[in-house]
C-alpha cells in the first residue's frame, strides 16, 4: 500500500511490543482501531510528512501479545501507559481510533501530563441504552468490513494477508485483535470512562466519519461535553467508522490543522 515504516521491538511488562515509526519532527503517537494495525497506511504516511509518527501495538493486536494477562480496565490502562512511555511518547500528542480511543482517553484523564493533545476518532468507552452503538461482536460472518469503511473493499484490503505471512497464523492474528478489544469492551463498550472524562484537561479533537455505522454522533457529543479541556467535533464526509482508511488525506489534514 505504502512505504514501510521503521520497526523496533520493546519489552514491556514481559511482552514483546512492536513499534512502527515514520517521519521526522514533533512526535505523535498513534493507536489503531478495530483489527489493530496489520499494515502501514496512506493516512500514517501522509501524517509522517510533517511529524514523527510512532505507532506501538497494544496487547493482543497485531505485533503484540499478552492481552490474556489483562483482566480489568485498570490492567489495560497500566499496560497502555507503560507502552506509550516505553515508546517515548510521554507528553506527546496522541491519536487513537475506535476501540483504542477508550484507552487513550482514560490515559489522558488518569495521567494528565502524559498527553499533550488528544485526537480521538470514533472512540469507544461510553454506552447509551437509548442509542446503542453497533454490537461489533455480533455481526454476521463476513459483515465486519461493511461496518468498518464506506467501501468494504477498503477494509478488506487493509486486513488482506501479505504474501510472506502464514495464512493460518494471519487469520489467528486478526481474530486475536478482535478478541483483544472485546476483552476490555465486551459487551457494551462502556469502560466507565464517563465518570473520568472531566479529568481530561488537554485540548481534544473528536473526529467521526459521517457514514459511520458503528458509533453514533451523540457519543462524541457526550465526550465533548464531558471533558474539561477545549473539545472540537469534526465530521468527515464520505467516511465510515475507520475514517482514516476511507479519507486518509482529509483526516491527516484535519489532524495537522489541529496540531498547528
Amino acid at each position: 500500500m505504502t512505504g514501510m515504516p521503521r520497526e523496533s521491538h520493546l519489552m514491556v511488562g514481559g511482552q514483546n511490543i512492536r513499534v512502527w515509526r515514520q517521519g521526522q519532527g514533533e512526535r505523535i503517537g498513534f493507536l489503531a482501531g478495530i483489527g489493530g494495525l496489520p499494515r502501514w497506511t496512506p493516512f500514517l504516511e501522509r501524517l509522517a510528512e510533517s511529524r514523527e509518527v510512532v505507532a506501538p501495538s497494544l496487547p493482543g493486536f497485531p505485533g503484540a501479545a499478552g492481552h490474556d494477562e489483562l483482566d480489568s480496565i485498570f490492567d489495560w490502562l497500566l499496560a497502555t501507559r507503560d507502552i506509550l512511555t516505553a515508546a517515548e511518547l510521554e507528553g506527546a500528542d496522541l491519536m487513537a481510533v475506535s476501540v483504542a480511543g477508550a484507552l487513550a482517553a482514560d490515559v489522558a484523564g488518569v495521567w494528565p501530563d502524559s498527553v499533550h493533545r488528544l485526537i480521538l476518532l470514533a472512540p469507544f468507552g461510553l454506552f447509551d441504552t437509548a442509542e446503542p452503538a453497533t454490537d461489533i461482536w455480533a455481526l454476521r460472518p463476513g459483515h465486519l468490513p461493511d461496518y468498518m469503511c464506506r467501501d468494504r473493499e477498503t477494509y478488506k484490503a487493509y486486513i488482506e494477508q501479505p504474501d510472506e505471512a502464514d495464512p493460518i497464523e494471519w487469520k489467528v492474528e486478526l481474530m486475536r485483535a478482535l478478541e483483544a478489544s472485546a476483552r476490555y469492551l465486551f459487551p457494551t463498550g462502556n469502560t466507565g470512562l464517563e465518570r473520568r472524562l472531566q479529568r481530561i484537561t488537554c485540548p481534544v479533537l473528536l473526529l467521526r466519519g459521517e457514514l459511520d455505522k458503528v458509533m453514533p454522533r451523540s457519543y462524541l457529543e457526550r465526550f465533548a461535553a464531558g471533558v474539561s479541556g477545549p473539545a472540537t467535533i469534526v465530521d468527515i464526509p464520505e467516511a465510515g467508522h475507520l475514517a482514516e482508511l476511507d479519507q486518509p488525506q482529509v483526516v491527516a489534514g484535519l489532524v495537522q490543522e489541529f496540531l498547528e
Partner: protein
Amino acid sequence: MKMMWFHLMPYTELPEDFKEKHPSVWIDIDPKLFDPHRGHHMYNDFIDELEYAAECGFDAVCVNEHHANGYGLMPSPNLIASTLARSTQDAALCILGNSVALYNPPTRVAEEMAMIDVISGGRMIAGFPVGSPQDTCFAYGQNPSMLRQRYFEAIDFIRRAWTEDKVFSFDGRFTKQRYVNCWPRPVQEPHPPIWIPGGGSVETWRYCAEMDYVYCFLSYFGYKIAREQMHGYWAEMDRLGKDRNPFRAGFLQFIGVGETKKEAMELYREPAEYFYDRCLHVDPRWVVPPGYMTEATIRARVESQVQLAAKASAGGGPSINQNAKDFEGIVENGYVLVGSPDEVADKLREIAIDLGVGHFMLLLQFGNMSKDLTRYNTRLFAEKVMPQLRDLFEDEWEDHWWVKPLAKNERAPREAAA
C-alpha cells in the same frame, strides 16, 4: 451400556411462519411469543415425560441449561432436577449442566448441586459445560475472552467446595472468597461424577483426561458427524496413555422408534422438521464472538477447512450435509435415528462400538412432539431396544464415572402428602 433420557424442553408452539417473521430462536426471540398459560402445560408435560422415562427404566434422565432460547426452556436445570430428585426413585439425575462461568461466586452452583445430590440420595451427575457462546456471551453478557479462564477456575472451586474437609479461602483470579463452606455436603464421595459436555476441542479432551472427567460429545447432528470427533478423542486418549474404557465418553443422539420403519418415518417427520427447521433458526450474528474459540481450535479448524477444500477439489469431500431441514435429509444424514426397535438397536450397537461411547444421551422427545408420541417412543425404546443393548461393555469395562447412590434401605421413605 447406560441409556439416558434427555429433554431439551423445546417451546412446542412456535408459529408456522416463525422463520419468515423472526430473525432467531435464540437471544432476541420475541418475548411475546412465549405464552405463559401454554408454558404452564408444557413444563408440566415435560416433567411428566422425564418421570415417565425414569419409570420405564432409563438409567438416567438428563436436563440442561439454555438462556433466551425457544428450544430450551431450562434456564435453571437445577430447578427441574430438584423436582425429579423427589419424584423419581432410581434413575440418575444428569445435569448437563451448569455453565459455571456464569455464576460468581460459583458457590451457589456447588450448594444447589449438593442439595440435589443429598435430596436424591446420591443420584446426581454434575455436568459442567463451558456453555454455548449464545448462552454465555450474548444472553448473559460474559466476556468471551475470559470465559474459559473463569470456567476452569469455577470447576476447581466447586470441586474443592465439595471435597475440602475444612472451611477454606479461595483466592482465584476471578473468584475471591474468604470463607468457603459448602453446606450441605454431597452424598457421593469424593464428589458427584463430573462430566464435561464439549464440542470437540483438543484442549477439552486433554482436560477430561487429566482430571478423569467424562467427555460428552453433544451435537444435534447425529452419529455420522460425530465419527471424526470421537475418533479424534480416542486417538488423543491413546496418546495420553489412557485406556479405551467407553464409559469415559458420552454421546447424544435423536431417536424415533416405531413398530416399523415406515411407521416411524410417518410419526417423527413433523417433530423432526419442527426442530431442525424452526428450532435451529439461529441468526448467524449470534454464532461465535471473538475470543470464545481458543486459538488452538481456530488453527485446527482453519487447517481442517484447508484439508476439506483440498479433498473436495480432489473429488473426495465428505458427503454429510450439515444443514438438512427436510425429514429425508435429516434421516439420511443421521441427525435422527429412525426405525423399528430392532433396526434402532442394531444401529445403536454399531454406533456405540464405532464411537466408543458407553453413555448414550437419547432425545426421544424433540421439536413439537406430543406427549402421547413421546410416551410411545419412550416405551418402545425401553421395552424393545434397551434390553438389546443393556449388556454392551458392562462385562468388559467398569463405569467408574457413574453415580454411587445410597443403598435402598438407607434412603428416606416416600410418604404421600397428608
